[in-house]
């Protein structure tokens, strides 16, 4: 078997012809608590190295850990949001292994008594269908320190001469969420993996338990993957791919491992059960370390911590704090607002749902709120290089009330669309409220029909050929005349009214 290339791949289509994928996803989420899991050290991201550590998180002799109340509550809320059972009584356990980023030489985790278990998360896919991801468990544990590998190429662990460790992250509360083996995904496996992680991220954000920034590592995903020959029900040997730290990478890593497993199995080889490392830049996985004797973690109940036994009433109180699930909220809002699927997707991608929500609440029409936030304001935010529209709005002091006011000015007949855009320009430049800007810039539709009629007469006289076309029944030719009239009126006319007058004069 030594002739088989374990790093070769076959095409995705070839894999699907012969195999069914089975996935298991493990997601680690750093909780957004102020302090660590078992001590009062701060959890600030980006602090100077080794400035947020104490005897407890350094594992110094005699130090006594005490559980963070907020972390337990967050864990329970996450479990409830994932439709899990909540343990009435559970313990922490020591997971023993030697690795320099674990100063205690064990990680305090949970073993056979997770705080939450047996749940599910429904995931909406692009084709409108829903896939139910079964959740095996969600348990509490602590993060490890951060290593800087020195002496090798570009910070890689391979070839390093030594490593420098910062323990600021050691002890930050983590929740590990583990799915059951997901079967029957077929060709949609990569998409489902990505959609699951995205849905989970939105849910955790809505729960306000973590900042879920994959790029900063506060949410990390490990992908377990194996293939079964079509028709078989026996699970194949799996690999565990680590470091998959963006939604796009989750999708790519699943697909890549499917193609790699497929190549080995098709050539008659067998999969080595091992850890693989995902490389975002090259889009491939490389061999990490094989599962070995060293994975004998000798778990035992943590003697320094007492059991966690959340009273039923407390669990119910926490259940009452759960937000409406994001997917459900999106569907409700889309139907309330009457947006098309495409409009809703654009609004979601631009992160405008909350802004539009509060603007509608403040009295604007949904269409108006969408039009201005995703039109003029988003355009300016983009031109001015803002991170996102919401941040831009806060910086520029733009509130839903401004949108409501402007829509009122347009609906009341004072402004037309192009004037409204000029008003936004002023508002975004800090010249005041929409009304104040309109006043200051003298923006107001001419309501005097006499002036408008005079302008129409002038334009008709100046464009006899166009006018004749309209007389002959080519109504669309009136557009050119309307443009001329607007120019004559310096833009301060109601285009609809100009059209009415032109048609009345030429065809009436």
């Amino acid at each position, binding site marked *: 078997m030594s002739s088989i290339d374990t790093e070769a791949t076959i095409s995705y289509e070839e894999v699907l012809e012969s195999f069914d994928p089975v996935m298991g996803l493990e997601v680690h989420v750093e909780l957004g608590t102020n302090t660590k899991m078992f001590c009062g050290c701060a959890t600030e991201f980006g602090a100077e190295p*080794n*400035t947020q550590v104490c005897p407890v998180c350094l594992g110094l002799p005699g130090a006594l850990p005490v559980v963070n109340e907020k972390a337990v509550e967050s864990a329970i809320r996450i479990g409830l949001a994932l439709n899990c059972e909540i343990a009435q009584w559970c313990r922490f356990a020591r997971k023993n292994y030697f690795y320099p980023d674990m100063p205690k030489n064990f990680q305090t985790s949970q073993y056979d008594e997770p705080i939450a278990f047996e749940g599910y998360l429904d995931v909406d896919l692009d084709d409108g269908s829903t896939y139910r991801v079964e959740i095996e468990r969600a348990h509490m544990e602590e993060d490890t320190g951060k290593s800087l590998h020195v002496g090798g190429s570009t910070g890689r662990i391979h070839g390093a001469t030594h490593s*420098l*460790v*910062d323990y600021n992250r050691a002890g930050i509360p983590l929740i590990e969420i583990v799915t059951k083996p997901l079967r029957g995904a077929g060709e949609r496996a990569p998409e489902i993996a990505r959609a699951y992680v995205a849905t989970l991220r939105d849910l955790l954000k809505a729960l306000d338990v973590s900042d879920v920034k994959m790029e900063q590592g506060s949410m990390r995903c490990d992908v377990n993957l194996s293939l079964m020959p079509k028709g078989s029900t026996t699970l194949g040997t799996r690999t565990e791919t680590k470091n998959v730290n963006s939604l796009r990478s989750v999708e790519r890593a699943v697909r890549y491992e499917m193609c790699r497993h497929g190549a080995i199995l098709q050539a008659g080889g067998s999969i080595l059960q091992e850890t693989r490392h995902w490389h975002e830049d090259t889009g491939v996985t490389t061999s990490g370390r094989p599962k070995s*004797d060293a994975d*004998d973690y000798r778990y035992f109940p943590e003697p320094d911590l007492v059991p966690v036994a959340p009273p039923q009433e407390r669990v119910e109180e926490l259940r009452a704090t759960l937000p409406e699930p994001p997917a459900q909220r999106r569907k409700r809002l889309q139907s309330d607002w009457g947006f098309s699927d495409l409009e809703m997707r654009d609004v979601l991608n631009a992160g405008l749902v909350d802004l539009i929500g509060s603007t509608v609440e403040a009295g604007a029409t949904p269409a108006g709120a969408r039009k201005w936030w995703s039109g003029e304001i988003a355009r300016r935010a983009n031109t001015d290089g803002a991170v996102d529209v919401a941040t831009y709005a806060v910086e520029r002091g733009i509130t839903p009330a401004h949108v409501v006011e402007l829509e009122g000015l347009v609906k009341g007949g004072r402004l037309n669309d192009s004037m409204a855009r000029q008003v936004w320009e002023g508002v975004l430049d800090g010249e005041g409220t929409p009304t104040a800007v309109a006043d200051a810039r003298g923006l107001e539709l001419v309501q005097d029909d006499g002036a408008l009629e005079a302008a129409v007469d002038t334009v008709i006289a100046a464009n006899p050929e166009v006018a004749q076309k309209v007389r002959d029944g080519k109504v669309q030719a009136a557009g050119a005349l309307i443009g001329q009239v607007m120019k004559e009126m310096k833009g301060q006319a109601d285009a609809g009214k100009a059209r009415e007058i032109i048609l009345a004069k030429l065809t009436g």
Partner: protein
Amino acid sequence: MAELTRDDVAHLAGLARIDLSDAELDKMVGELGIILESVAVVQQAPIEGVEPMSHPMPIVNVTRPDVVRPSLAADAVLAGAPAADQQRFSVPRILDED
């Protein structure tokens, strides 16, 4: 209880990162065997209906509020480190290169 084998001891020594010579391994198989035998007496205790205990105190839910307390100063943290660099603990390379 199954007899402790030489392989068991070698495995445990590996997990604990203790380098034992062949002579030491032989010696430990005997000594650890005696220790296990001695401790095995507790297996004779009547445990019918007794829940396993992981903590001597019958208490649950000892927690602290999520309030920041001062950490140690970085120089104090690193004072006990055999080697430090860039305000970090310097440790030997992690992967054995083959």
